[in-house]
């Protein structure tokens, strides 16, 4: 079946995501944010960008887009739902993932490759990866600073899928680009079918462009399509 890639006004990574999903064997279609019926799809990606200009709070306005009821339904039914960068922010605002994303610690936009350590394979984003494996994937955000209070962090410890790290896998403040709590770069819901990732796996699918490490994550997603995680 086909993955719906939602286009909000202000999204800008939608074409890249379709291209990347197809390059790992998936099939994807763009869907406008006013769509109210996703019954033709069994998985969805909220791509990166600046939905509604990121005005007020990133993701705050987008979560009210008509399509979001269907996204919530797919999530509840255990279908794969992935938010990348701005999509991650939207899933948090919509309450489908814990926590929020705040401005980067240094208050500057960051666009550069970062290293990520796979912490768990219990999600549609990491199931084909190996725990401990280190991936090099571009980060591209101003509000990439994952933040949650201590209870939330404690409660969702085993939902952390990726952490920022050094090239050798060391996790430490020095290798945390944006100040994220617990160095979190990607997190999933309990069931593992809803995941949010701040860096852009779709930007790391060809060596010509610098790295192919993102493929394993997108392959995980594509492999999860069809399977229902309840």
């Amino acid at each position, binding site marked *: 079946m086909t993955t719906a890639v939602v286009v909000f006004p202000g999204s800008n990574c939608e074409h890249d995501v379709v291209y990347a999903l197809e390059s790992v064997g998936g099939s994807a279609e763009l869907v406008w944010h006013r769509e109210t019926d996703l019954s033709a799809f069994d998985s969805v990606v909220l791509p990166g960008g600046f939905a509604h200009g990121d005005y*007020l709070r990133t993701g705050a*306005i987008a979560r*009210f887009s008509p399509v979001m009821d269907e996204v919530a339904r797919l999530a509840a039914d255990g279908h794969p739902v992935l938010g990348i960068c701005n999509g991650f922010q939207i899933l948090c605002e919509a309450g489908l993932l814990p926590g929020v994303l705040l401005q980067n*610690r*240094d208050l500057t936009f960051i666009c550069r490759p970062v290293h990520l350590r796979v912490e768990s394979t219990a999600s549609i984003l990491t199931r084909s990866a190996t725990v401990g494996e280190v991936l090099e994937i571009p980060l591209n955000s101003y509000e990439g600073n994952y*933040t949650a209070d201590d209870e939330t962090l404690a409660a969702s410890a085993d939902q952390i899928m990726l952490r920022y790290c050094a090239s050798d896998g060391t996790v430490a403040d020095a290798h945390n680009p944006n*100040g994220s709590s617990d160095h979190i770069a990607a997190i999933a819901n309990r069931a593992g079918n809803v995941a949010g990732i701040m860096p852009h796996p779709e930007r790391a699918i060809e060596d010509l462009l610098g790295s192919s490490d993102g493929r394993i994550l997108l392959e995980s997603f594509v492999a999860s399509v069809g399977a229902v995680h309840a």
Partner: protein
Amino acid sequence: MTEPTKVTVVVRRRPSIADPQGATVTRALRDLGYTVDGVRIDKIITLTVDGAGDVTQQVTEMCERLLANPVMEDYEIRIGS
């Protein structure tokens, strides 16, 4: 049909949640030689609500749904300018 009402909403990030912007501005002000502390930068939203119904209740709803993020922010509503 009621009169348009001016409303002010102050949206504050919970003290428990880091405020990188406030921290940066504190540093900057100290660099400029001021002895300041605990700078926080929050949002003040002004709008006019028109139409029938209880304004306070309407604005509370707007805050709960859109203007504030309950996970990290508190809000405070002032009716009338």
